């Protein structure tokens, strides 16, 4: 029997990796992937807690999160494509039009 705390530790590690990657990466697509990593860490957490507590809410929420994450990825990639058409770059250091 794998204990709940193991799952939650893995989830916390995955989430920290996502946060670290999001804050240090300079490529927009990598940042988007880090967000997906964070969302999946959350899903793991919810499923583990839900199973441990024998409560369905967590698993229902996971399905909602998967659906929303798909919409989010579609919009995010769409925005990156329009940005690439205008700026010809997907790196944060080239996003310099807006400042002050």
């Amino acid at each position, binding site marked *: 029997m794998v204990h709940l705390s193991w799952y*939650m530790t893995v*989830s916390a590690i995955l*989430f920290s990796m*996502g946060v670290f990657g*999001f804050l240090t990466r300079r490529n*927009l697509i990598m*940042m*988007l992937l880090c*967000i997906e990593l*964070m*969302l999946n*860490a*959350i899903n793991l*957490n*919810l499923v583990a*807690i839900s199973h441990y*507590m024998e*409560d369905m*809410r*967590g698993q*229902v*929420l996971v399905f*909602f*999160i998967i659906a*929303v994450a798909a*919409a*989010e990825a579609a*919009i*995010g990639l769409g*925005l*990156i494509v*329009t*940005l690439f*058409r*205008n*700026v010809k770059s997907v790196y944060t250091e080239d*996003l310099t*039009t*807006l*400042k*002050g």
Partner: protein
Amino acid sequence: MSNTFLFPVVSPLGPEIFLAAVACCLVIFDSLFKEQRNIFPVISITGATVTTLMVASSKGLGFSGMYNVDGFSVFFKIICLLALIFTVLMSHNHLKVLGVKREGEYYSLMLFACIGMMVMASALDLIVLYLGLELMALSVYCLVGIQKKDKRASEAAIKYFLLGAFASCLFLFGLSYIYGATGTTSLPVVTSFLTGEGIKSNPAFLLGLGLVLIAFSFKVAAAPFHMWTPDAYEGAMTPVTGFMSVAPKAAGFAALSRLLFEAFPALHGNWVLPFEIMIFLTMAIGNITAISQVSIKRMLAYSSIAHAGYALLGLLPGTAQGVSATMNYLFIYLFMNMGAFAVIVLLQQKGLAGERLEDYKGLAKSHPVAAGLMLVFMFSLTGIPPTAGFIGKFNLFVAALNAGYTGMVIWAVIFSAISAYFYLRVVMLMYMHEPQKEVAIVRSGALSAVLVMTLAGVLIIGIYPNDLLHLAGMIFGK
């Protein structure tokens, strides 16, 4: 577990369902009627007006207590719907000026965003809150980037998207810890758990709560989580900026007040100190950075950060008086900020024209009415009587003083005095400078209607404040 299936009570969601149907119709009509572009704003405004009337009479609990339509949520929904109506009125002509095609798409996104906000205001369950938040946020990301050929818009959209998605991740991670500690996502049930001492000092629960509050601080643009605000506000189309500065912020405040006062009132002692620091930073960064801006949209972005700081001041004491002061303030802010953005829309052409502060030089000589309107809105944003902005700030400060937060109120007054510098600079540029170049005005009946309504709102609330105050007080006093 019972095996009987109960059909959920959907009647309290009538307005949301109706608005969603209107938004879907807009998407379909967008591809059917490519030529008759004038029908889209008419449909959107009719839909939003009918929804407003439906919201005003809706009441009750839906979906086994996950969705609560009470006076509190109705108040916030009306703020969001009014913001929607004003924005649609402002947009039609402006879209033509900017050459944006696909109007149906634009209005449907705005309607979907508004549904998200209404769901957030009514959510009594963290799952529902999350879905409302995402519906709002995803639609607004698209609205910011709707000018596909514009470099600034796509840059603003991607910056807003990344930080917004990051904030949603923090919210969900916090939510998973709250779920782990209490075994439920329903706010009333979470509240009933908080009576025990154990849960109050449970580090996992407090971490979860902290992350959820940080996520909403992102949404209401409170420092130090405000980094996206200036860029997103500057890059978006001006009507969208006006919408973003009012409606999503009001929805964020609705969710935040519900979390802090209905779900976690017992934890007031835990969050009050971080909140004080956050409010101080928000007011300081918003007001001081606004001074050095050259773009009026960017200046108003920092000003909206500062106003989020004042509005949070009402949540700080944890009293009904404070919350009703915040609600009033957001209602007043709707009129004054929408009005200021409507004046910018009036002056704006394709490109940067009408967006720089120097474009306002000598406006009083070339366009006295536009300058006069801007004067009223700038006075109101500063908080000078007899405008509504004064009443709003006065109530917030009184609520905070009554609860004993004298230090915070002194800081708030100091920062409002600083804010007079950059608001009144616009007035000075308009009235005390000679016109430098010809500034063209894009007139339209709809835009004039917005200007008249916002002006009336600012002056009527400023001169007869009592009715509004009683309304919000009654709602929250329950």
